[in-house]
Each structure stands twice: as C-alpha cells, then as structure tokens.
C-alpha cells in the first residue's frame, strides 16, 4: 500500500515541479522571496501540527476519505522537494524549444508527455526518486491518522518488544525497495548543479494561487485551528509550564545535528554527496533501528544510553536536505562571485552568509520537529518535545494540549529568528 501511495505522490509532485520551478526561476526581488517562503512552508510544517489539527476530519472520515486526505497532504507537503530539485537541475530544453516542438511536430497528448519526460533531464528523475523515498518512509502522518503502512507496523513491532533482529527482518522488503531506488540514483552520472537560468519575468497568477492555497491548507489553517483552541489553554499552560525541559532538550539535539549536518555537507566533496545522503534517504524509522542495532553491539554499548545515537541519526537524516541546500546556495552567479571578491559586509551577508544561516535554521527546524528517530533513540531523561506531544496527541484535542503544541512550535522559531538577528548584527558590525 505504501508503495502505491509513494508512486502516486511522486507522480503528483513531478507533475507540479517542472512548471513551478520555471516560474520560480523567473521571480525577482520580493516576489522571489515570498515565492520561496510559500513553497517551503508546507515542507517544513511539522506533521504533528497537521495531523493534530485535522484529527477530527481524519477520524470521522470513512477509510477512503482518510486515505485521500493522507495522499493529498503528503503530495502537497512533498511537492516542494521535487520543485527544489527541478530548480537546481532545470530541464535542458528551453521554453523556445518546447514551443517549436509543439508548433512544428503537432504532437498528441501522449507524444507531448513523452517529449517532456525525455527532455526533463536528471532533475525530474532525482526529484521523483527523492519524493518517492520520503513518501514511502512516512511514519508520522500515517501513525496519527491510524493508516496502514509498513512503517507503522514496524514501529509498533519494535516498541512492542519484537527483537531488533526480527524487526529489521520485517523491514527487509521495504528496505530492498529503498535500496533499489537509491542504487538507481547512484548509477546515474553525478549531476552538476547549474547556475540559475536568466528568465524573463513571469507574471502568471496561477502559481501564486497554488502556492497560497497549499500553504493555507498545510500550514496556515492548522496553525489557526490550533491557535484558536490554544487561547483557552494558554493561561493554564503559563501557570504550570511543563514542557520547558523537553523543548530545551529538543533544541539541543536539533542544534547539534544541524551544525554537524551543515558542516559535513559543506566540507564533503561533491562526489561523496550521494553516499552521504543515502542513509538519511532510508527514512527515520529504518535508520533509527539500524543505529539502535549498532549501539547495542558490545563495542558501542557504552554509548547506548547517551545522546550520541540520536544526534548521529538526526545528522544522517539532515544530510539529504543539507546537501540540497548547499547545492542551492553554491549555484554560481556573477553577483556571488563579486560578493566573494568584495569586503563589503552587507553584500557578503546577503549573498554569502545569509543563505548558509537560513539553511542552518531550516535544518534546525527539520531536526527539532522530528519524532520517529527521537522516540526510538532518545536516552532516559532526554525526551524531545515532539515525542512527548505525539504521545499526548493520541488523547485527542484539548485546549491545553493545543497550547503546548503552539508553544513547542513557536519557541524554536523565535530562537532561530533571534539567532539570525544576532548573526546579521555581528556581520554588519565587522
């Protein structure tokens, strides 16, 4: 079932990616910034926030309705990955070439589709593969909406006490699928990231409407719903704030993993990028089980009940997005070249430091909101906040829980904004 879902989600993401990437590349200035914010917001919205906000819809829907909701949310949430890849590796076919083909060859729909697929270049395949892998390994949304998935079965088996070796044996078939896709990816030539093409401004409204609608459904509406419920619980939460330690622990884990991932992604030669990204692409569940198995072997058992296994797993999970973000900020452009030659702090901040700081912030958020690996690997006394909240979310929606969720969501964002502000201030003073 997860295989079918992942194929559908990858197909939908790819259908959206090409056009959206070209449109994104044609945006300039403030429009470009907002387009990126709207594109990435759904991807970085924590699954718990979405599943909790829509819990009533999901629970009262008939099974096919729940399945449809899950597919839609997964596709809308993961499509940005395909767009991101398509932006980095745009189609070698120019808009003029496409136009010429349509005019001269007068293809039917099938021929046109084939033409686009063949001409899409490596971006399409890589994007499809990445979306497929992430969708196939999804656990968090499936678990909270009680959907059948291999990840849910394996997670339950593991925490339900099945021996680790047996659990990993259960995971063998899905792992085989994942490794197969990774092998197909690895066999292709390493792609050189291209400089952003210079495109004429694109003033179409449809992409704006699409991005706005997706952000509204996946990010804004869940936040508004939860904030609405949280209002009644905020007083009780402030009087008896119980999540401070968990939020602190989560921020420590997330910061450690984000720094490690970004450092590795920046230092590693490009030829090792696929090798570095591979473990993270297996998904949080399989990765966490493998790390757990490793740290239960005699040579590593001393570190079993320490933060090390979780930091390691989170770092591995962050490496694929870290490498993508690195590719994004390293795209060659004349402006960046000039900035590197210049000693002007503002220019360096805008063109060099800010993209890296943003990437670090995004990675921090990604790790902070992670639940699966944290549930399996967090040592005693280091319960990350989303592990705790995921458990509480099973009790249904309450005002206090909504307030807790909102606090857990807002605190790290404020921390990242504060850190960004400090970084900018210190750069501008140099």
């Amino acid at each position, binding site marked *: 079932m997860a295989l079918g879902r992942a194929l559908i989600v990858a197909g939908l993401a790819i259908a959206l990616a090409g056009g959206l990437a070209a449109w994104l590349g044609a945006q300039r200035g403030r429009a470009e910034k907002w387009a990126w914010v709207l594109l990435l917001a759904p991807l970085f919205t924590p699954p718990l926030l979405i599943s909790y906000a829509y819990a009533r819809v999901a629970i009262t829907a008939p099974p096919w309705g729940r399945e449809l909701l899950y597919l839609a949310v997964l596709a809308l949430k993961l499509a940005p990955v395909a767009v991101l890849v398509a932006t980095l590796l745009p189609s070698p076919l120019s808009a003029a070439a496409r136009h010429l083909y349509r005019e001269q060859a007068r293809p039917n729909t099938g021929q046109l589709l084939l033409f686009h697929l063949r001409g899409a270049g490596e971006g399409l395949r890589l994007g499809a593969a990445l979306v497929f892998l992430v969708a196939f390994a999804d656990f968090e949304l499936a*678990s909270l909406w*009680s959907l059948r998935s291999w990840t849910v*079965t394996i997670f339950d088996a593991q*925490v339900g006490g099945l021996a680790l070796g047996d659990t990993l044996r259960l995971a063998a078939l899905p792992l085989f699928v994942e490794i197969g896709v990774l092998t197909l990816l690895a066999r292709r030539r390493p792609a050189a990231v291209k400089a952003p093409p210079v495109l004429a401004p694109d003033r179409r409204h449809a992409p704006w409407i699409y991005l706005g609608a997706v952000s509204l459904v996946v990010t804004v509406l869940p936040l508004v719903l939860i904030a609405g419920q949280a209002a009644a619980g905020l007083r009780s939460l402030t009087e008896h704030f119980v999540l401070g330690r968990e939020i602190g622990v989560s921020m420590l884990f997330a*910061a450690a993993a984000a720094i490690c991932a970004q450092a590795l992604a920046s230092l590693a030669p490009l030829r090792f990028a696929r090798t570095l990204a591979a473990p993270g692409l297996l998904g949080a569940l399989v990765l966490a089980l493998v790390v757990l198995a490793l740290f239960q072997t005699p040579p590593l058992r001393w570190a079993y009940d320490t933060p090390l296994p979780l930091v390691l797993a989170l770092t591995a999970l962050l490496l694929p997005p870290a490498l993508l973000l690195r590719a994004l900020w390293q795209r060659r452009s004349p402006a960046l070249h000039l900035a590197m030659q210049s000693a002007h702090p503002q220019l360096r901040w805008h063109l060099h430091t800010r993209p890296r700081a943003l990437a670090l912030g995004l990675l921090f958020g990604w790790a902070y909101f992670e639940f699966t690996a944290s549930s399996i690997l967090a040592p005693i006394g280091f319960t990350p906040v989303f592990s705790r909240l995921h*458990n509480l979310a*099973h009790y*249904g929606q309450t005002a206090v829980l909504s307030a807790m969720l909102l606090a857990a969501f807002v605190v790290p964002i404020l921390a990242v904004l504060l850190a960004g502000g400090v970084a900018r201030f210190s750069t501008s003073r140099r």
Partner: protein
Amino acid sequence: MPRRTVIAVLAALGLLFVFFLIIRHETAGALVVYCAHDSIYADEILKEFEKRTGIPVSVRYDTEATKSLGLTELIIREKDAPRCDVFWNNELLGMLDLQERRLLQPYRGSGYARIPASFKAADGSWTGFAARARVIIANTTKIGTTPPNLDSLLPGSDRSQIALAKPLYGTTLTHYTVLWQLWGAERVKAWHREWHEGGIREVNGNAAVKDLVAEGACVAGYTDTDDFFAAKDAGKPVAMHPVRVDGGKTIAIPNTVAIIRGARRELQAQALVDFLLSEETEIALARSKARQIPLGDVPERRLPAEVREMRPWVREGVDLTTLGAARAECLAWLKSQYAP
C-alpha cells in the same frame, strides 16, 4: 570551509556538549522510573514525590499505541544490565510476566500492607493500586443510554460502527486474555474473526476508540474509564457501561508497581513504591481527570461521586492474577495475526 567557520562550528558543538553534560549530571543520580501510565496524570504524582522527598526522578514513558507492552519488553531486554529502578505499569499482566521471569525485587512496605490481597503478589514482587475498568463507550445521540449488546447492536454481521483498539497491547490485551481464559482459544479466535469480517474499526489505542465514538463516527466501542471521562469532560454525547463477562463479572485493571531486580537505587525505589501505594496517591488519582478507582481503604467522602459509583466494579472484577499463562498464549496468537 574557511578556518573561522571551522572554529565557530567546533565552538558551537563544544557548547552543546557542555549543555548535554549539565543535563546528564542532573539526571545521573536520579531514580529511573519506567512508566506506562499516561504521562499527563503520572507527571504530577512523580513531581509531588520529588518535591516531598528530594529524590530526583527520571522517567521513561511508553507510547500510547503500545501501552505497557513496550516497557515490559524493554525490561526483559535489559535484564542483564537493568537501567530501570521502578516500573509503574498501568496494567497487571505484563507484571505477571516479569514476576515469572524473576525480574522483580520483592518489597513489602507500608503501602503494600494497605492493598487487598487480591491485588498484590503474595511475595511482594508487585502491588496493585488505583484501577480502571473496561467499559463500553456509547454515543448517546446515536444509540441512547441503554447498555448495548455489541454483538447484536448492528444488523446482521455488520460491525463497521463499532471501535476497538488493536489487542496486541494495553488493556485491550487484558480484555482479550480474560476472554481467552473464560471462553477458550477457539471461541476467542472465532469471535475475533467474526468481528473483523464484520468490518470493525480497529485503531491504535483506547483514546482513538473514544474519539471515534465521541465524534459519532462509530456508535460504540470498547475502551477504559479514563478515556470515557476524557470524552465526557469535553462535553461529548457519551455514556459508559461496564463490560460484563460470564457470570456478570467486570474487568477492573489496576496500576501496578514493582522494583526491578538489580535496581541501583533500591532505597529510593522503596520510597517511591510506598508513595505510590499510599492513600494520598490513590485519592489524587481518583480526583484526577482519569478518575481511577482506589483499591485500598480511603474515606469515601474524599472521592468524587463518579468514582464512588465505580467502586463496586472493582469488587465484582475477574481475578486477573491467574491469567499469566492465558496471556502468553493469547499474545503469541495475536502476534501471529498481526505480523505483516
């Protein structure tokens, strides 16, 4: 990467390492408690214990989906190098399993003395306190307040409007085990098959059963009293009726507590066990939103009316202490049924 950046990265990681060490130091001497009871209720009790005794507690909670079984299995896995000092389980059968494996350290303190004999191990390996009961939760706008018979509630073999948690874990496993003991394996298997063929809504936990019924997606389901009260407090149109098995007996499932054999902080562990088994803790749990039913003697006037009404269900309950073998058989069969 420029040298300055490398230094910044190393400094940041060093700082994080220091933070980790501080937290580690804080938790190093703490009493390690594995707790299968819902964290929203257990937290307050454990914090009160810390406040009164000054003994720091480090807790590992279970997941809602795999209540208690996960921690029971973890204790079994860690038997050669136990990390857990005290196991606060939210049911009994897992504790019986640990007792049989000789992983529990007997202790008969002041708390043990006040709990009736039917809710504690004779050798003090474990002791029960504050029970829940299995109930049928019904949506009153759909089927009214009359106690329903779930086998004949819907026409024919249709079970699509009835909800049940996955029976591999928690109190639903206890429920299945009771039936296994009373009905025998074949009848339980047939009943399970019939319900699944009828399209029963099987979900991850009792809380999800409560949600399905409270939201009207199902007309009724099997859950526990604490989940029912969560729906009732939220103003949902629900009623509860105790599950009655053969002979009209109820299924009352106590929390249980035990010290793990080889615990590194045995004295502190004993202090916590006495605290959990005290009259005060039972009253606190009865007054909590979970409305748990005290097992020891407590002044009736200090209990909420709803808890007073439920106290007879505990006395009418099936004896769970004899279910060890049935649990093992039933669980083995269920695991085979749910294997992917």
